[in-house]
């Protein structure tokens, strides 16, 4: 369900930039979605296709760039890779980790006409 709101957010950003950048059709949309952003990529693609119907992005291809989850481990004092928000540090097993990357959800760029 919340992928639907996010897809609407993507379309809003596209429509806003269509006004400022003067374009009338969007062919490709690049999204950057972090592994820890809580976004289901397949659901996002499904919702995007539904939301852009009858818009300037109708039929646009959606390319999702997934970025890895990263966290700062207090014990190891270094950045480690994590798969999920509640993962322990893969090196020392501590849960004293602070997520530093992989929670982004952003529209990176568009291919437009």
């Amino acid at each position, binding site marked *: 369900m919340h992928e639907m709101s996010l897809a609407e957010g993507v379309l809003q950003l596209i429509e806003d*930039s269509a006004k400022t950048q003067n374009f009338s059709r969007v062919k490709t949309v690049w999204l950057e979605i972090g592994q820890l952003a809580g976004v289901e990529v397949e659901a996002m693609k499904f919702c995007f296709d539904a939301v852009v119907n009858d818009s300037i992005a109708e039929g646009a291809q959606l390319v999702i760039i997934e970025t890895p989850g990263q966290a700062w481990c207090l014990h190891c004092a270094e950045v480690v890779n994590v798969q999920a928000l509640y993962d322990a540090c893969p090196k020392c097993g501590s*849960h004293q980790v602070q997520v530093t990357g992989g929670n982004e*959800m*952003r529209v990176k*760029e568009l291919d437009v006409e």
Partner: protein
Amino acid sequence: MCNVCGCGAGETTIDGKAVEHEHSHGGHFHVHADGTAHDHDHAHDHEHSHEHMQAQHMHYHLHEDGSSHDHVHDHLHGHDHQHEHPHTHTHSTAHYGLGPAGAHAPGMSQSRMVKIEQDILSKNDGYANDNRAWLAAHGIFALNLVSSPGSGKTTLLVKSITALNGSLPLAVIEGDQQTDNDAARIRATGAPALQINTGKGCHLDAFMVGKAIQQLGLHDDSLLLIENVGNLVCPASFDLGEAHKVAILSVTEGEDKPLKYPDMFRAADVMLLNKCDLLPYLTFDADLAVANARRVNPDIQVIRISATSGEGMDEWLDWIRAGCKKAVARKTIDGR
């Protein structure tokens, strides 16, 4: 002579007959030196919604017989004009204006890249920042209460409001898909409450809350309690401008809920472990639930509470009062 296509009146014949030169410049009528004539329609449907860099674009026609003509469209036109050339003649035509933009510039592709680099939630975050700034300027301490449906949020709110017993000015925003049952329960305590029905929506967003704040007419230096839609997934992503998210987990749920819905427990600063009066009758391991919450969010503050027995209510209300004091103090400092 026609000043659009340059063909001369009176020189034109088709099968030896003079052509009545009726130019209705929706269509272009051309007669060439070899005596052939052709007619092609430019169904220009100019919706001039925006301007284009090229003020002119040129249609260049080259015919097999070697004759050529070009005609200049001197206008600012939009991308969205329909540029159909149903040529009814048999000459082969080299046409450079058939691209989607209806124009051609050497070396320039019709499509281009636009850098956006904006967060998908930036619109919501913008409204949330406005809410946060407004609340801060008025010394209002706002909490966003999130949980699954049935965790006892509304009962806890009712009991908290009753316990505060008017010592603190407060207001409540209730979020549900349908009905204003919850707002009615709050209003029964005497506190002002506004119900937001999200319809198909699964969460409150900052825009809705901003509108509700305007309508409620909040007191300065007061407490604002926002009860979000019962949902442990979506409300985690939507900042409303609150000071803290408070997650409520009841002991009739599973100890592993923080692991199942990590986004929410990570976004929250406080977890209320509710319905603790039922612990003797359940196999629920409260320590494990707290440990799971800390796995997701090492800094989360936990208060064990029961709206029914009153256990933990003092700690919870003290925490609220401390937050309200801080909000008032910050307003005074920032206001200077």
